[in-house]
């Protein structure tokens, strides 16, 4: 009985606590409550956290050495200054200000300039164990005063403490340290600054010194793994009190623009759709569809074994988009841009002028260069930068060689999400059967159900020679020819031989 009433009291206290906390946010109505958040300045992280880090509270970022903690924290400050005009203090327990400034220069962060503009302050707290003796009682008031001074001189709204655990290496009195850390985090809250505290990953706990005990509002874990010789970085929100958040592991990338996180799988299917019909670039192919083309914003899969003219169809597709003055992003995983252009020229498909006029961007890279997620991130970034209306991935099956089957499926779904979310018309080619590659067939499996239109190409060896065939397997929301259409490739391009017949056999719908 007694135990029961204790629980009730605890519950009551919790409710009071929640009520109290609510006062810090904005009450929109009785039920709707907006938790104040501060933009992180990191691509994708705001989406995952539902708007950023908790405003006026500390956030703990933990991870093993070299996983990008310092960089993330610095990007948070620099972007805060540049995009939200919120000055920041970086209190540094490891590197000197000069080292730090040099390390992030490659990312285009000019710390010296920001310091000169009084937008940023870097305070390097150097703790030299060899020159310090401890005797009697002390506290860390000196640190508080320094931090307070730094915050007040520039009116800082954001603070980073990187890595406060160094204190434990320099000082021996753990009891004092722990009490003071608790006081520090409370002090940061009272000060109302949005803070990042970084911590080294511990063996059993999230951080070596159990900092997660003190920072209880938002905890983010960074991870660095090497799978099959390919390095992947991942980020996970361990907790975010008072806020909903994505709980998956999200891949992130560190490149010349800093950190970007890939927010994925908004599993809701609520993309807006278009009834607009666009050409595939090949009039004879358009005729196979009842609507004389495909829907704008739809995705098309072209499968076939080697040498079945997948890339040629893809090039037609690119060309037709360019002719409509719509930007095309062409990911080529097998041919370099120059090679692609030369080869297509021999079929009277001239891509070159469009590359020059920047309507067409061909991005070539080796699939094995990076992990799947990194490819996806690069795709995502390029889409964001280039804002294409059409994206071609040729072939998508070559990406598959770098991941496991579940990863491939997840990645394809994410890719699809990104494209549909942006209203981009997509075309994928996929190499199948001929390669006897199980993984390749897996792509076909995975993507054919996701794709709106599926075109199969095939080669048949007959006595007299080769016969090329094209079959529209499906086309969502549109009737299509059910016939295998023979075609030939001449130096004028693809010619569909029995296209006229196709008119009569329009599908059931």
């Amino acid at each position, binding site marked *: 009985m007694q135990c029961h009433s204790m629980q009730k009291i605890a519950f009551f206290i919790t409710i009071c606590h929640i009520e109290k906390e609510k006062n810090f946010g904005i009450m929109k109505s009785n039920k709707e409550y907006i938790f104040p958040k501060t933009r992180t300045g990191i691509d994708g992280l705001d989406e995952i956290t539902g708007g950023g880090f908790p405003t006026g509270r500390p956030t703990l970022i933990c991870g093993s050495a070299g996983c990008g903690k310092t960089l993330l924290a610095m990007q948070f400050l620099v972007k805060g200054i540049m995009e939200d005009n919120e000055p920041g203090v970086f209190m540094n327990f490891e590197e000197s200000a000069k080292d730090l400034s040099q390390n992030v220069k490659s990312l285009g962060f000019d710390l010296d300039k920001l310091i000169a503009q009084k937008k940023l302050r870097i305070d390097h707290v150097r703790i030299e164990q060899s020159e310090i*003796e401890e005797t009697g009682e002390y506290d*860390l008031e000196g640190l508080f005063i320094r931090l307070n001074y730094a915050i007040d001189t520039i009116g800082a709204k954001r603070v980073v403490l990187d890595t406060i655990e160094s204190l434990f290496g320099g000082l021996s009195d753990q009891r004092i340290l722990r009490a003071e850390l608790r006081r520090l985090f409370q002090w940061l809250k009272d000060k109302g600054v949005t803070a990042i505290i970084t911590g080294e990953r511990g063996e059993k706990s999230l951080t070596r010194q159990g900092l997660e005990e003190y920072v209880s509002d938002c905890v983010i874990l960074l991870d660095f793994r090497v799978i099959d010789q390919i390095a992947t970085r991942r980020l996970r929100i361990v907790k975010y009190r008072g806020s909903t958040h994505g709980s998956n592991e999200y891949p992130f990338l560190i490149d010349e623009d800093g950190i970007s996180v890939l927010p994925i799988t908004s599993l809701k299917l609520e993309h807006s759709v278009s009834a607009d019909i666009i050409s595939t670039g090949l009039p004879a192919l358009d005729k196979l569809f009842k609507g004389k083309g495909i829907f704008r914003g739809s995705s098309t899969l072209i499968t076939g074994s080697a040498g079945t003219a997948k890339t040629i169809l893809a090039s037609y597709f690119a060309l037709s988009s360019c002719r409509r003055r719509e930007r095309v992003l062409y990911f080529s995983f097998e041919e370099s841009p120059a090679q692609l252009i030369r080869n297509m020229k021999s079929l009277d498909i001239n891509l070159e002028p469009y590359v020059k006029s920047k309507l067409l961007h061909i991005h070539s890279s080796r699939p094995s260069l990076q992990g799947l997620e990194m490819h996806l991130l690069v795709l995502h970034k390029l889409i964001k930068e280039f804002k294409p209306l059409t994206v071609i991935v040729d072939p998508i099956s070559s990406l598959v060689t770098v991941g496991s089957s579940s990863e491939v499926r997840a990645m394809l779904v994410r890719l699809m999400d990104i494209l549909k979310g942006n209203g981009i018309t997509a075309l994928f080619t996929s190499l199948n059967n001929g390669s006897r590659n199980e993984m390749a067939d897996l792509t076909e499996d995975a993507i054919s159900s996701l794709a709106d239109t599926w075109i199969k190409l095939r080669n048949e060896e007959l006595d007299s020679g080769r016969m090329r065939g094209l079959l529209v397997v499906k086309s969502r929301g549109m009737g299509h020819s059910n016939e295998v259409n023979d075609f030939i490739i001449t130096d004028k391009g693809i010619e569909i031989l029995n296209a006229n017949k196709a008119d009569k056999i329009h599908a059931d719908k």
Partner: protein
Amino acid sequence: MAEEEKYELRLYVAGQTPKSILAIKNITKYCKEHLDGQYSLEVIDLLKNPQLAEGDQIFAIPTLVRKVPEPIRKIIGDLSNEERVLVGLDIRTL
């Protein structure tokens, strides 16, 4: 006893807290006993001069800094253990 060596000491405190008062009392006593006439002691209140904390890398309060002779030594705490303070400052007792 060190002949011409002069000790330059700085004690950083933050307001009149018991720990600070105790530290001031302790160091004044030790200096008089062991370094009579050979030292200078400056007490810096960081509440009044917060900008001075960074220069001497102060994070704990109270902190006693031996600026001269070099190398710099730091003793943090209320300095209640005389022997440790003297060892820390490298003062040879008589």
